[in-house]
């Protein structure tokens, strides 16, 4: 990416910020380089149907379409709140990939690369890359938080893996019991002495070093700052209800989205939230409504709140699954309407972080089977993510088995996303 390098050196100049805004029209999409300071990644595990979400096809989709805030762009009837904020989204309808099995497809979409022959050759998920490349927003908070799922750090090292949150009880791990609190210093002293003894007996290794770093980070997180950040109960009822985190069956995804907004406000830089309800081989006509409504409440409210709090410009929101689903009218399997995996054409959505607003990129044919305009590969997508994050695509990393690799070898930035 030669343009990337130019831009980076340009930003390195002292008056960079001032010039950047004045010269923006000349630079076109380059001015959006590195605009994203945070990321909220909504992981639609299972492979959501593009036909029943963002790429409605008359005669094929088993849901109706509704108008959105962008004239001419129609999406699923089950996404009314997202329809209202579509003017802040970039919808990519022309994703195309080669992997249609969950595990390898997830690897490809999360890392931009295939799995490799062994763990030593695995690539990090993009959340882990952010943890590595971005400085922590706060020493008292993790850089990368996973709500329900979190990507592996591979060769970037354990400390860049996601900090996994137990959504049902995110707080009790952050503070000792009342009666144990005065003992903490003594306990940590004893722990250090025990580990010193053990390391002296066995000798230091990367394992023992990692363990001690983890203890250090854990202790840093036991202050009031992290506690406050993770305490969703401080949000008012109305807000929680808007996210779907209310009623008899509160939405874990909705609460995750709310927590994500809170964490980003407090200095966490990357939050991943899973909605794992999309593998609709059977009964898609019945399952699509509830899953979409959960998505709509969580993501729709999130986009609106990020806008209201002026966080959207610096926070990239990513909506993505591992693939789409078989095109055309949904076939019947064993008497039930369903769709199988389909990687040839599917949709993903980006918002904020310098990404263009109210835009649809690419298109598929009449039944959603093939990309007819502007194909985007997983590698192109990752190149675009890293463009938004401000990462150097030419940077070389060392794999666990000692090979220098680039994170993205073949992809190129989708310029339409940033123009």
């Amino acid at each position, binding site marked *: 990416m030669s343009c990337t390098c130019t831009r980076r050196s340009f930003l390195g100049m002292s008056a960079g910020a001032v010039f950047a805004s004045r010269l923006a029209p000349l630079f076109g999409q380059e001015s959006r380089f590195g605009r994203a300071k945070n990321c909220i990644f909504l992981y639609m595990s299972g492979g959501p149907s593009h036909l029943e979400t963002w790429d409605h096809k008359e005669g094929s989709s088993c849901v109706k379409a509704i108008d959105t805030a962008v004239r001419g762009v129609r999406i699923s009837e089950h996404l009314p709140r997202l329809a209202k904020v579509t003017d802040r989204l970039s919808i990519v309808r022309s994703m195309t990939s*080669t992997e*249609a*099995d969950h595990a*390898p497809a997830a690897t490809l979409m999360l890392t931009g690369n295939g799995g490799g*022959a*062994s*763990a030593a050759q695995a690539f990090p998920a993009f959340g882990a890359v952010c943890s590595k490349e971005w400085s922590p927003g706060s020493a008292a908070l*993790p850089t990368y938080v996973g709500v329900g799922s*979190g990507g*592996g*750090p591979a060769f970037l090292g*354990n*400390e860049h*893996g*996601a*900090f*996994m949150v*137990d959504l049902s009880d995110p707080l*009790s*791990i*952050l*503070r*000792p*019991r009342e009666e*144990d609190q005065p*003992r903490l210093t*003594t*306990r940590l002293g*004893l*722990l250090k*002495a*025990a*580990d010193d*003894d*053990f*390391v002296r007996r*066995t*000798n230091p*290794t990367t*394992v*023992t070093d*990692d*363990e001690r*770093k*983890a*203890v250090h*980070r*854990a202790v840093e*997180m*036991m202050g009031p700052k992290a506690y406050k950040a993770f305490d969703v109960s401080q949000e008012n009822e109305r807000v929680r209800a808007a996210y779907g985190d209310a009623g008899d069956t509160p939405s874990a995804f909705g609460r995750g989205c709310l927590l994500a907004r809170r964490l980003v406000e407090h200095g966490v830089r990357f939050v991943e939230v899973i909605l794992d309800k999309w593998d609709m081989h059977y009964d898609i006509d019945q399952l699509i409504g509830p899953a979409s409504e959960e998505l709509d409440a969580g993501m729709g409210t999130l986009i609106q709140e990020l806008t209201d709090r002026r966080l959207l410009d610096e926070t990239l929101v990513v909506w993505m699954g591992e693939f789409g689903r*078989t095109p*055309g009218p949904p*076939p019947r399997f064993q008497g039930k309407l369903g769709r*199988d995996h389909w*990687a*040839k054409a599917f949709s993903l959505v980006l918002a904020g972080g310098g990404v263009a607003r109210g835009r649809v990129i690419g298109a598929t*044919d009449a*039944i959603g*089977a*093939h990309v007819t305009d502007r194909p985007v590969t997983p590698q192109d997508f990752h190149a675009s993510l890293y463009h938004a994050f401000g990462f150097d695509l030419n940077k070389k990393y060392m794999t666990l088995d000692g090979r220098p690799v680039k994170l993205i070898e073949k992809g190129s930035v989708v310029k339409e996303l940033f123009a």
Partner: protein
Amino acid sequence: MRVAALLAAALAGTANDGWIDRHIEFRLEGVTPSPLCDEPEFLRRVSLDLAGVVPTMSEARAYLARPDRRKLVDRLLESDEFSARWARFLLELTAESRAISFGNQDFNGHAYYGWLVRQIHERRPYDRIVRDIIGAKGGYEEAPEVQFLIRWRVIGLGDLTSHLGKAILGTRLRCAQCHDHPYQRISQEDFWGVAAFFTRTREYANTDDGLPGITEVKQPFKIRLPSQELPKEGAPPPEPVAIEPRWLGASGPASGAGRAELAKSLAADPLFAKNIVNRLWAELMGRGLQEPLDGFGGKTKPSHPRLLDELAGHFIQSGYDLRATLRLIAMSKAYQRSCRSDGMEPALFAHAALRPLSVDQLYLSLNRATVVQEPSAPRLDAGSGKANAKEMMMADRNAASSADALYADRWPRQLLGDVPGASTAGRLAMFNRREIQKLIDAGVHAALKAMGPNVGEDHFEYITLALLSRPLSKSERKRVEGKKDTADLRDFFWAAVNSIEFRYNH
């Protein structure tokens, strides 16, 4: 290499004791391996490896008074905990997750686990166990071994076949699903030929209780090949096709004996034995002789190919006896070395590996170390295996519910995290989770109960024995000198539970 050749290798190589170590030492080429570990280290390590849990207090005291490594290994191999630990191993190997989803119901997998416990307890040969799992039919209640087929069938025939290759042969057939395999000569046709052995099976659910089962049908169903190419734009996905069952590399279609024939073909493949001994080796040694474990026939070669062949041959010769191979490994010097690594290459096996405890090991060990009474181990007897297997499962759960803990399946994944070893969330959970703090309280209570109400050195030693299988060290003695408070005991317990020494097998 054929199975007969593996057998010949075993007969030639294993005539004398110490043959495993000759292979290991041959490759050391001047590197001085670590010395053998001391008795407390061996006791803890081999108990965690073979029985999946730290020794009880009385076991630890008895062993340290009169150490005998061979006797200890033999006792552990005969223990009920051994059956449970290796049932969990086979459960994870075959089904990956314990629970299965079928229809709209989740089943906790306890019945399949109980079946596996029984197989191991009754010393069923490994090849028979695999044969039963592959050929399983009937309802989940009377034939819980159908879990393996159901677990993968509901995802797809391709996943079932891939997993079979991965778990049973240690090789990746998966890549052949959509295109020819890049590294091995397994064509797409070969892959679906193996899958076709299952085309007469069908899963069903009972109408009354929704329990799943597997039944055989006369007419084999057709396979919808997962092509990602449409013949023409807008045309419907390709039609299912009928595929003849055919074993990898076989010249013609199978005889029609179906899954029984598949099981036979699998067992006749040299990778069948190599895969399982490699996995047993990896369980005890921290890494396989072949890495990755499902990488046979791939780009990486085994580090000690002849050792692997001889272990496989020995395993076949022993009648596919898991205990025989585990005994061999546990009695080798390579297994019994200290974990001082001094920068040596791990693949040399010149020192023991530092391995994080699994969630199960951590859970069972914490529970065992914190109960007042040794839980009376449930006895299994071969005569009435079924009822007792159920008892065993119940006992497993009861042991768990003591001290108000949760069943290991429901333990927050946070406790160890997705990445084994160091994770900040995992550390915080161990530091602060209420469940853990209650266990620590229970452990302190147990120490007071056993050693009397006046806190002294003995109480602290109770804790190191219970958690770390060793007496107090000199430096610990100094640290606890003059400490008389139960709060001191609690602090010491907390630190021990969070120490690297407890969290790892070493």
